[in-house]
């Protein structure tokens, strides 16, 4: 391993590749988690059914779901002896995406619940009174809650890109294959390449904040 010298030697493609993989894994997990979490949150928030309160509480409680547990779960499911071991995706970016998706879903679903619940009751009644069926009404209410829903997605991304436990457990931090920014920082620190770790830390900070800034920029221009 000569990780400590790579920045100095100008072999920057490693950093670029690790950064791109971070964006790919956490971006995919955010999209996947949102595709599941937004409809789930909207359904829990808008439908009346028995056990609704309990389901809400569970969703909110899962905000605190530890990444390591998510990693453990995906590790078990996709390990050789596990139920879905035949897929052979352990120690691939796909497994990392799935583990992070589990972390994103409760956040996105929970904030979506809050956002759609807060949409004015008069709007909900108006929408139904104008003849919207269930699907149309849900879609419109999500649109009314859009700012909150986008916030949910951003926070979901923030959680995914910043976590290390799940990515490390099911990805394995394999150089050139599953190494992302957070796991690289951990490794470099442990190996004593402190300056390199700090450099990667700065990159992570820029990437995470940059994505937020970009989304804010889109939002302010009403492109999102």
């Amino acid at each position, binding site marked *: 391993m000569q990780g400590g010298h790579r920045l100095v030697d100008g072999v920057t493609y490693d950093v670029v590749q690790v950064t791109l993989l971070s964006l790919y894994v956490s971006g995919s997990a955010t999209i996947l988690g949102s595709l599941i979490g937004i409809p789930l949150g909207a359904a829990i928030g808008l439908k009346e059914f028995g056990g609704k309160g309990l389901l809400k509480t569970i969703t909110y409680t899962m905000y605190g779901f530890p990444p390591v547990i998510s990693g453990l779960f995906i590790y078990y499911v996709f390990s050789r002896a596990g139920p879905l071991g035949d897929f052979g995706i352990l120690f691939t970016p796909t497994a990392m995406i799935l583990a992070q998706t589990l972390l994103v879903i409760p956040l996105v679903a929970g904030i979506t619940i809050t956002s759609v619940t807060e949409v*004015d009751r*008069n*709007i909900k*009644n*108006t*929408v*139904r*009174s*104008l*003849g*919207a*069926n*269930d699907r*149309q009404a849900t879609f*419109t209410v999500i*649109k*009314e809650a*859009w700012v909150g829903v986008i916030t949910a997605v951003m926070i979901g991304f923030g959680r995914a890109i910043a976590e290390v436990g799940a990515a490390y457990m099911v990805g394995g931090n394999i150089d050139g294959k599953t190494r992302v920014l957070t796991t690289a920082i951990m490794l470099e620190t442990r190996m004593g390449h402190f300056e390199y770790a700090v450099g990667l830390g700065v990159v992570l900070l820029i990437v995470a904040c940059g994505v937020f800034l970009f989304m804010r920029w889109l939002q302010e221009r009403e492109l999102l």
Partner: protein
Amino acid sequence: MVAGEGAALNDLLRTEELTREYDAKTAVSDVSMSVNVGDIVGIMGPSGSGKSTLFRLINLLERPTKGRIFFDGEEISYSRPDVYLIRRKMALVLQKPAAMNRSVFNNVAYGLELRQLEKEEIQKRVDDYLERLGLTESKLRNARSLSGGEMQRMCFARSVIVEPKLILLDEFTANLDPQNISILEKAVRDFVKQEGRAAIIITHNPFQAKRLCDRSALMMNGKLVEIGETWKIFNDPVDERTRAFVSGEMVF
């Protein structure tokens, strides 16, 4: 049977003993009434007497505890799977105007889009209704930036543009200036009388009932005290409470 209400078979809307109870309180109690095509019916009464709840029951937004509703030749109910198709034949304009976070044009077009009309047809009809209600210049503004009067007019346009057979107006001119009131009242009259539809309006203003309504009713504590021809309600009411209300002795 409520005083003054006769039974008719060919009504556009008929409710039978419609009742809505909440945990401790009966919001609407045994309301039986009917509305014919071409009718404008006014419902007056103190705040909290169940008028708005009655509207939500008729519009199938809430499940009644008891009672039946007949509309446009069939019995309708909250629990039918095609409930949204029945709602498409009525329109409710809420007491508190609710603007969706989009342009005035897109707000007014909403009901037509739900019905999947052609784009050009939507364009044409929305422009027509915006013109009629004096909103053409606000067409592209975000609806949430409208003034109170503009907002009420937009909500009215958004509801009548889908050409419902029955329109339910909940204090649709509350807090408006005389000019806005007269624009909206004329629009209701045109809508019902020229296009052969029907309206029920909730109003706190006896003068509005006199100006606009063929029949009027008084509602108190969830019950329909009396319903009848507007002139009779104001000049020769049957119930003592109606007499007190129209003579202004009843202070809310």
